[in-house]
């Protein structure tokens, strides 16, 4: 009898271990598959119940009970989901362990039960020759299969790309791939002579004209050149190009662009905008509360085309005669107050700031479109939530910069390619006041919190290095600041007018008009123009000491900011479009 126990005895524990490990692995694997399927079912983003509740919320946004239920369910689903993910993660390691034990035990079993090699009698003949012949056939077959595969692939999709350089020219000439057309945008001088966007050429609410009206009387009609009834709803401000005034209006049934004659106020044309349906699920359309409406965003023009965007995402370009050139829908917009950011242009490009949702939704973007075709030239994702402040384009530090505001960032992008240039973390709340650029500084208001002046020549996060001053008195929450480079003015929603030194932010004076203001102030010459929701129009001196020049009641309500042309000021009231100035 040998001292060595039989192989089966020695291998039995290993065999048992291998069996247990196999069973464990299988059961664990099945449990993980079941858990994985369950996790998918509990994905909060896929939950029909949660979706249904969220869909109900826009219909009754003040329903706190519903909000609470949504939060509770969301929390429960996320809790379950992440617990399952944790279990899965642990399970993977256990599974690896189980499989490793199985392999180890099986290997041991094999080693213990391995039979000694027992060479068989060699056969006569030349088995190697036969094997080589079979191998040659196999190699040949592989070669034929590889060749056939290459040939089949070469017969695949016919290439669209021409083979020779000459053919490329022909293709481009044929128009299949249109060659770029030189920019046709208006020159900076032309733009400066007009009012091409929200708050004028630079978006700062400042006119360089000095022949603008200082007083008028709506009751007697003195100084009122014309008054045209408003026939289309909208809070956007008028823009002016040449002898034409443009503004937009609309509701759920129709969106339109209206053009008036600047001299007479006569309707030149009105054009309904026809845009394709919103992309994605139509049921999840843009949020458009009545308080904002469809036409809160002010139009813009590059002097050759006018552009309009509406809260449902409709975007259109029209020529100056009202012919629609292109349109698209950029929605739906996830914005609880409705999309209200105005358009801007740079050269022949249309700039769109589409801030929406929450910062983590990844939905906010800044885009530049070719004004002639509507095709996107560049686009940059913005990790911000919804905002209502309109972008401005400035020339600073040798670059054309697009200045944007959305909590928590004031961010600048290169107008040429959308590359981010600098950013300052300073904003909070629902950012509505638009930025202005004056005296080499960007002024930005964090609503009801602080007014900041930023030197726009930095790179990266310049929060600690480029903020020149900040002021915390009487900061507006809706209206935008205005500055002539020496002084800066703000008016808060309740009508508190404040003057700051634009160089250091020191308050010079304040005056409480006690009137509701949504229209941003404007500066022309040495005057500051103010308009209230209830129709008050006020002119004060743009000086270090408060001095009211003029005040009148217009008998109309104003949400829009004024637009200026030679000797004229165009106002959009809730009931009329006004043109104020001296008759020539």
């Amino acid at each position, binding site marked *: 009898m040998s001292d060595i126990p039989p192989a089966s005895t020695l291998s039995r524990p290993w065999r048992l271990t291998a069996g247990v490990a196999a069973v464990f692995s299988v059961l664990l694997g099945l449990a993980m598959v079941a858990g994985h399927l369950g996790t998918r079912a509990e994905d909060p983003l896929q939950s029909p119940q949660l979706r249904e509740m969220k869909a109900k919320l826009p219909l009754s946004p003040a329903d706190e009970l519903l909000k609470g239920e949504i939060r509770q369910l969301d929390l429960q689903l996320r809790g379950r989901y992440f617990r399952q993910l944790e279990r899965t993660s642990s399970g993977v390691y256990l599974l690896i362990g189980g499989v490793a034990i199985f392999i180890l035990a099986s290997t041991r079993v094999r080693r213990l039960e391995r039979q000694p090699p027992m060479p068989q009698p060699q056969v006569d003949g030349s088995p190697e020759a036969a094997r080589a012949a079979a*191998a040659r056939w196999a190699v040949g077959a592989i070669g034929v299969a590889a060749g056939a595969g290459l040939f089949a692939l070469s017969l695949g999709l016919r290439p669209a790309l021409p083979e020779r350089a000459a053919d490329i020219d022909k293709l481009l000439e044929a128009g299949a791939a249109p060659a770029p057309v030189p920019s046709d945008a208006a020159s900076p001088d032309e733009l400066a002579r007009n009012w091409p966007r929200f708050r004028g050429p630079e978006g700062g609410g400042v006119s360089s004209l000095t022949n603008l009206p200082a007083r008028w009387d709506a009751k007697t009609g003195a100084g009122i050149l014309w008054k045209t009834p408003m026939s289309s709803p909208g809070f956007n401000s008028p823009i002016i190009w040449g002898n034409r005034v443009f503004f937009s209006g609309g509701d759920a049934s129709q969106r339109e662009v209206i053009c008036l004659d600047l001299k007479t106020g006569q309707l030149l044309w009105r054009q309904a905008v026809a845009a394709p349906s919103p992309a994605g699920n139509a049921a999840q359309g843009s949020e458009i509360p009545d308080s904002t409406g469809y036409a809160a965003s002010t139009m813009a023009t590059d002097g050759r085309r006018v552009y309009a965007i509406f809260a449902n995402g409709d975007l259109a370009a029209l020529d100056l005669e009202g012919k629609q050139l292109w349109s698209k829908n950029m929605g739906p917009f996830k914005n609880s107050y409705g999309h209200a950011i105005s358009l801007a242009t740079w050269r022949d490009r249309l700039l769109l700031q589409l801030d929406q949702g929450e910062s983590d939704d990844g939905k906010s973007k800044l885009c530049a479109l070719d004004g002639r075709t509507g095709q996107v030239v560049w686009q940059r994702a913005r990790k911000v939530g919804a905002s209502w402040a309109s972008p401005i384009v400035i020339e600073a530090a040798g670059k054309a910069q697009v200045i944007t505001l959305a909590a928590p960032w004031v961010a600048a992008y290169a107008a040429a390619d959308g590359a981010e240039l600098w950013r300052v973390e300073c904003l909070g709340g629902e950012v509505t006041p638009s930025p202005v650029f004056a005296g080499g500084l960007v002024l930005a208001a964090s609503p009801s919190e602080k007014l900041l002046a930023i030197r726009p020549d930095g790179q990266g996060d310049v929060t600690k290095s480029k903020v020149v001053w900040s002021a915390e008195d009487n900061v507006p929450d809706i209206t935008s600041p205005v500055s002539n480079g020496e002084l800066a003015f703000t008016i808060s929603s309740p009508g508190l007018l404040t003057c700051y030194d634009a160089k250091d932010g020191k308050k010079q004076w304040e005056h409480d008009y006690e009137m509701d203001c949504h229209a941003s102030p404007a500066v022309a010459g040495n005057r500051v123009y103010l308009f209230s929701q209830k129709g008050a129009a006020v002119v004060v001196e743009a000086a270090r000491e408060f001095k009211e020049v003029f005040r009148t009641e217009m008998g109309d309500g104003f949400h829009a900011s004024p637009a200026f042309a030679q000797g004229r000021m165009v106002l959009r009231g809730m009931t009329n479009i006004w043109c104020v100035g001296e008759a020539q």
Partner: protein
Amino acid sequence: MAHESPGDGMAGGGLWALARRSMGIVAVAALLALSVFTAAGEQRFPPPDFESGHQLPVTSTPAARAVWLQYADAMVLAATLGASAWLVYRKRSRKGLVALSIFSLVYFGFYRKGCVCAIGSTQNIALALCDSGYAVPAVVTAFFLLPLIFALFGGRVFCAGVCPHGALQDLVLIKPIKLPAWLEQGLSVLPYLYLGAGVLFAATGSAFLFCQYDPFVPLFRMSGRSVMVVSGVALLGLGMFVGRPDCRFLCPYGALLKLCAAVAKLRVRVTPAACTQCRLCEASCPFGAMREPAAANPEPRALAADRRRLALLLALLPALVAGGAWLGGRFGVPASRMHPTVSLAERFVREGSAPPKSGLPTDEDLALERAREAPKELLTQAAAIRHRFVIGGWVFGGWSGLVIGMKLLSLSLHRRRNDYEPDRGDCFACGRCFEYCPNTLSQSAIPASPIRDSSRV
């Protein structure tokens, strides 16, 4: 048809055989289940919409590996290669090689996450050779060259105990079966074809195929694309029965190592002394690398036929190369679509006059919009890249024809072998055969205890 190795007869009857087969299936199933969850690791879950002002942590990008650590990696590689050669040629220790394999698996695989690896470095070298603007880091060059240099002197010691891919497959090999020689030889040309394709795509700057389809990296990283995970698990499942399937029939770097090992100064020998022709080792290799003794000249009648065949194949070789080059050139056109510039240009031409899409554009749409700014530049660039692809396709096709032709030639040559010996190119230097040689056992005075006669039960 696969059949069992004679040395691996089963003990314990059919029940145990059935149980072991079942367990094999179970293990494969478990590994496949693992793949499901590893693939699920790709999923990204959007954070909740906080209304409380909670600041989400900022996502940060991990810093690049410190330079000194990269040089340390190269030194570890050199040290492990040296250790592997020492274990193969001096110690002749299978156990030592297993221990080294486990270290390499942990270090180069799980710790280094499988990157940089020698297999992938081939592509960096190919790109650098064809693109003067691309510089290969010294460490990558070391990872490419060191195993090849060692192979030139000592065979595939890299595969023996340094490559984490090989180590992983070697460790899961539970019950090896021997593949028919014709299948083994037929499949052995695939690594060369894959090598050619990978070099083509890398040299044209289109894609690093070896990395994009690496089957085992997802396991090292516990995350990866589904196609990689599933292929890796399938190969590991297959690897329980077919020794190192990836190394033998797919690995492009293995093809290079094989070429170097074929002319290596040192070669792995089963026996440390004179071979007694006991034939105990003839079925010891699970990788089909063991070669039988063979006479230099066959029978006179067969010799004439063999010579005719050899002459025919020699004449056929240029035709195979030319035919392959022609096919490769044709293949270059569709293959060029793998290059992003060509792909964009193709889309640009197809959709050049299409009306603008509604809604926010995708990244691809944006690329197309940018292309419209300078269409001629894009099309000219794409045409130049495609031309390079066509040239590269000719080379790839010619290489493929050459591989097939040379393989056919090698299968038509007679080689004299007096002893049982591992094939220079195919041998992974794993050291399994050492334990089968009675000379080894007698020299090292190791009792033959691991091999038991189960018939004594």
